C-alpha cells in the first residue's frame, strides 16, 4: 500500500469516526496499535508501560480527533501524542525504577526461517546487546533513534513530533549514533 492510499484510508476512517461511527476508530486502532506499541516499548524500555501509553494515546486521540487538521500523517500526529505521554511517564518514574528498566522488554522473536537454533540464540544475544546499549543512551537520543531507525520517519516528521528544528534532529541523531557506537564498542570490549 503506497503512502497516498494509506493516507486516504486514514482520512476516510477519521471522517467516519467524526461522523459518529466509533467502529471506524477501532479500524485506526487496529492499524496502528502494534506499530506504536513496538516503538513505545523501545522508547520506554518497558512493555507494560508501552501498552499503557498506547492505550492512553488512542483515548486521547479519540477525544481530540476533531483537532487533527490533516497537515501531517495521522500516525505522526498519533505518535506525537504518544511521545508526550511517554515523556510524562518517564518523568513520573521513580529514580529507583531505572535499575530494572529493561525488565519489561520482551525478547525479540526472530522468525527463524532456515535459521538454526544456535544461530537464533546468537541473534537473540545480539539483539539483547543492542537493546542494552540502546537503553543506556540518553532519553532524547533514544527517542530520535527510534523515530528514525525503527519508525523510518524523515527528519521533518521527527522534527514535528519532537517539536524541535530539523537542525536539532540532525545533530541529535548524530550524537545518538556516535553514542550508540561507543556503547556497542564498550560492550564488545567487556565481553572479550
Amino acid at each position, binding site marked *: 500500500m503506497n503512502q497516498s492510499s494509506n493516507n486516504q484510508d486514514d482520512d476516510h476512517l477519521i471522517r467516519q469516526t467524526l461522523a459518529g461511527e466509533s467502529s471506524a476508530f477501532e479500524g485506526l*486502532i487496529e492499524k496502528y*496499535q502494534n506499530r506504536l506499541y513496538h516503538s513505545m516499548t523501545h522508547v520506554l524500555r518497558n512493555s507494560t508501560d508501552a501498552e499503557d501509553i498506547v*492505550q492512553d494515546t488512542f483515548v486521547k486521540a479519540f477525544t481530540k480527533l476533531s483537532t487533527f487538521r490533516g497537515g501531517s500523517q495521522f500516525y505522526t500526529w498519533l505518535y506525537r501524542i504518544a511521545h508526550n505521554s511517554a515523556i510524562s511517564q518517564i518523568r513520573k518514574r521513580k529514580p529507583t525504577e531505572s535499575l530494572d528498566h529493561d525488565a519489561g522488554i520482551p525478547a*525479540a*522473536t526472530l522468525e527463524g526461517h532456515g535459521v538454526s537454533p544456535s544461530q537464533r540464540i546468537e541473534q537473540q544475544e545480539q539483539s539483547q546487546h543492542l537493546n542494552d546499549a540502546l537503553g543506556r543512551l540518553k532519553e532524547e537520543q533514544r527517542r530520535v533513534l527510534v523515530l528514525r531507525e525503527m519508525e523510518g520517519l*524523515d527528519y521533518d516528521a521527527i522534527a514535528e513530533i519532537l517539536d524541535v528544528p530539523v537542525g536539532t534532529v540532525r545533530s541529535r*541523531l*548524530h550524537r545518538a549514533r556516535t553514542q550508540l557506537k561507543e556503547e556497542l564498542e564498550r560492550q564488545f570490549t567487556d565481553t572479550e
Partner: protein
Amino acid sequence: MNKPIPDDELLSAYLDDELSPEERARVEQRLVTDREYAATLDAFRDQQQRLRGLAGSLPEGSIDVRQRVMDAVEAKSTIAAAENRSGQKFNLWVLASLAALILLGVFLFLPDFGMEQAVVQNDLSDNPAVVAGKVDETVDDADLSEENEAAVVSKGIFMEAQDPIPASRQSRLERQMASGEEGDEALGSDAEPEFAAVDAAASKSSLAAADDAQPAQPNDFSMKFHMRQNEMLDMAALAGSDVEAAPEKLQQQSNANRMTRSRSAPSAPTFSKPGPSSVVQNEADKQSLRLQAGAAGESELTSKRSASESVFEEKTVDDEVDGVKVFKQLEGRWARTWHVRPAGEGSAVALFRQSLELAGCRFQLVRSSDAQSHSSGFAAGPQKDQLAKKKKGQQVDFIVTATPQQLVNLRNSVVFFADLRRLDRMLSALKADEAQSSWDGSLLPRVNGLDPAGDARVYLFNVFPAKELPAKP
C-alpha cells in the same frame, strides 16, 4: 545565512539521505580521503541495519487495546455528561444563592432605610418645621403587626451588635433569631443529602470540632449555610462508619423526621468540599442529620466530586460484612470504579480480592447485577438507557471495611498487580494532564490525611470485569 553543518553531522545526514547535492558531494569527497570518516559511516550503517532488524523482529505478544480504548472513551463521555449535569446544578445553585443574598439584602436595607428615617425623624422631632407632614412615614415601636414583622426582624439583626432590642419588644421571630433557633427551615435542613464524596480527613477534624461546638452567629447566613453543608458531610461520614446501627430503626426515625420537615428547601450542591472545620449547632440537629444521611431506600443518589473516579454513591445492599449488618445504603466513603480487561486467569475481581486479602481488609463481594450500574446514573437520556443495558450484570461491588492503615496496605498491595496498575493509568488518562495516577492522585492523599490508628470505615469499590464474574457468594 545558514550556519554550515559540521562534517560529522553531515555524515549522519548522508546516511539518511537528507543532504543537498552540494553537501552530499562534500561528504563523498571526504570519504575518499579520510579513512576514519569512512569507518564511522560503516559503523553507522551497520548500526542502522541492526536497529531496523530489531524493529522488524516482533516482540512477543502483540497487543489489542481496541476494547479497552473504546470502553475508556465511553467512560469518559459518561463522566463528561456527569460533569455537565453537575456543572449545571452547581450553576443553578450559585444563581439561587445569589438570589437569596439579594433578597436578604433587600430585607436588610429597605427596613433599615425606613428605620434610619425614623431615627432622623425622632432626632429632628423637636423641630416642628422639619417634622411637619412626615410623621406617618415613621415606624411606630409599638406597631409589631404581622405585616411589619419581617421588616422588624431585619432591623433587629441589623441593630443587634450595637443596640439589642429589649426582649419585651422583640417579635417571636426576633427572639428565635437572637437565640440561634432559626436556621433549620431557613437554611434548608430538609435538603437531600446529595453531596459529593466525603473528604474523611476534613470530616474527622469537623467531627472533633463538633464536640465542643459553639453556637453560630445567627445573622451570618453564609457561615451557617456552609456550616450546614459540613454538618451533613460529617453526618454522612458518621453514618458510614456506624455499621452497627440498625437500619430499620433509622429508617423509621428518618421518615418521622421528614414528616416534621415539610418545607421544601434547596438541595445541597453536588460539588462541595468540607471546610477546615465545622460547628455542629446542637445534638438534635446532629441526630437529625445523622438520620437523613442514613435514610435508606428512598432514592438512589449518585453524584461525583470530580472528573476522576471518586464517586459518591448510595446503593441498596442487603448484606452483611463479616456478620455485621451493613447499612442499606452506604455513605461517606470513597467509591472507586475500575474498568479492567480480563487478564488471563487473574480477573480484575480476583486480583482486587487478593489485594484486599493482602491488606488485611474485611470485605464482602456483592454481585450487583440486579442493581442498576452507577455508570448509568451518571448518564442522561438515551445514553443512560444504553449504558444501563450494557453495564447491567457486569459490575461487582466490594464492600470493604478498612482502617486508614489498611487502606494504605491495600494501595501498596494493589500496585503489585500490573492490571490494576494499568487501570490506574488508564483512568488517569481520562483526566487529560493528570500527572499522578488516579489512585495516588485522589485517594492516597486522603488516606494519608487520616490518622493511621483511626476507626475503620466502610468503602465501596466497584469493579467492572470485562468477562467472567466470579461465582455468586
